[in-house]
């Protein structure tokens, strides 16, 4: 589908938001509070921010919840009764004000969950989301989308992409059929596209490394002292993985109450010491530097090779969240020069 461009005035944007809400859509939009911005379910339009650089948490929770119910079961003497989760009941969700990197993050997750075996839990959620993107007009020194092949005005993963123009109105690019359907239903709010392009209204994010070069270097860098030297300060928490829009490692756990229970899928992290430990006590990744190496290799070497997608979108969340300043950008820049 060819991208169609329209103008939506500032006041009309509010109407669009309210119209979507009035139709019973659940909306997930960024809200700033106490100096932090996070996506929130069904905020009022006045609360929604358009000025944030990045939320602390990613949007993966919407398609890969931090706790996901896989099956329910009942046990008694006569046996076990298992009920599948009815995935047709998944509600549709409008993601509002999503930065282009985050929108592309869904593709990275898709490359994991829809690779080989198709994960229906993930897919049924993915089908139900509509992504209304918002180009970035601000960035900070943790942002590096341009280094992983994305850009502050990229349309990948968006159904509609909004870009704030100098007038305060928004340029709307309608990218998919899903996006078109939203526009059609509120056509009175959209006007003919202006001559002003989005290019002049985007954040300037300079490319800092070539990811192809990093991938190439990683192939021979498994035994390199780089890993130990640069991860001594890593304390092995899962903050990076949990805020990452593309990290998808999980654990499967049962939770029971009396005779009833559920099998749940919960987020996990390859940075945790017990992640790979065998029952025998043997641990293939015994020390933290091996786990840090795994994190980088998985995103920049294994995923490009197996899943034809990078496992990183350059949002910089992990660097901002890390309590010990393990800055992924800094490390990737060094890895490019290795």
């Amino acid at each position, binding site marked *: 589908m060819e991208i169609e461009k329209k103008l939506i005035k500032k006041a009309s944007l509010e109407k669009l938001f309210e119209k979507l809400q009035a139709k019973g859509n659940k909306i997930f939009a960024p809200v700033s509070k106490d100096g932090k911005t996070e996506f929130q379910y069904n905020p009022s339009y006045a609360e929604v921010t358009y000025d944030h650089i990045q939320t602390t948490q990613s949007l993966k929770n919407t398609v890969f919840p931090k*706790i996901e119910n896989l099956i329910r079961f009942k046990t008694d003497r006569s046996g076990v009764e298992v009920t599948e989760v009815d995935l047709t*009941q998944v509600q549709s969700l409008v993601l509002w004000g999503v930065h282009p990197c985050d929108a592309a993050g869904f593709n990275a997750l898709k490359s994991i969950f829809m690779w080989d075996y198709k994960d229906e839990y993930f897919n049924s959620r993915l089908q139900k989301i509509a992504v209304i993107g918002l180009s970035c007009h601000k960035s900070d020194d943790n942002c590096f989308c341009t280094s992983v092949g994305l850009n502050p005005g990229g349309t990948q993963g968006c159904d509609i992409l909004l870009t704030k123009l100098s007038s305060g109105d928004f340029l709307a690019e309608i990218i998919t059929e899903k996006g078109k359907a939203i526009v059609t239903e509120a056509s009175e709010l959209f006007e003919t596209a202006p001559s002003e392009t989005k290019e002049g209204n985007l954040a300037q994010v300079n490319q800092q490394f070539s990811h192809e070069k990093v991938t190439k270097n990683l192939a021979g860098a498994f035994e390199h002292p780089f890993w130990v030297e640069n991860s001594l300060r890593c304390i092995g928490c899962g903050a990076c993985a949990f805020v990452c829009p593309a990290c998808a490692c999980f654990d499967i756990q049962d*939770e029971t*109450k009396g005779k009833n229970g*559920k099998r749940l899928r919960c987020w996990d992290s390859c940075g945790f010491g017990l992640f790979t430990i065998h029952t025998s006590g043997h641990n293939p990744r015994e020390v933290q530097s091996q786990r840090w190496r795994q994190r980088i290799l998985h995103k920049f070497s294994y995923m490009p090779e197996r899943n034809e997608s990078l496992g990183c979108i350059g949002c910089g969340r992990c660097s901002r969240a890390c309590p010990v300043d393990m800055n992924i950008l800094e490390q990737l820049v060094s890895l490019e020069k290795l």
Partner: protein
Amino acid sequence: MSEFEPKIVAFVCNWCTYAGADLTGTSRIKYAANVKIIRFPCTGRIDFMLLMKAFQNGADGIIVSGCHPNDCHYSSGNFHAKRRWMVFRELLDYMGVDIERITFSWVSAAEGARWAEIVNTTTDKLRKLGPYTNYQNLVKSGIEEEL
């Protein structure tokens, strides 16, 4: 409407309070039937998480009881337990768990009547406090997540 009957879990030590509660029975002293007794070798074994498990599984109140100081079968189990409860009570209070719902007591093997009294006063108190919906809702909100 019938009166609210609280569910109470009693964590007791084998040597004093359990024997005391036994004596209550053999002495044919009647007392509130709200209590479910769980017997432990010693109060020193009563981990704080067990108390939380009781609340998690719907208890409205808890009794923890063991030997009087200096009477511990293992000489100091109850002293250790006491320190833990002192600290734990403060934490519970700080985190907003209603410590009125937990009764700590020393009941010896000879105090059958005292056991009945403790159960009865605790039951009365909990009847007034009502069901512990706070914690029960917390558990529920944890178990039932949205699809």
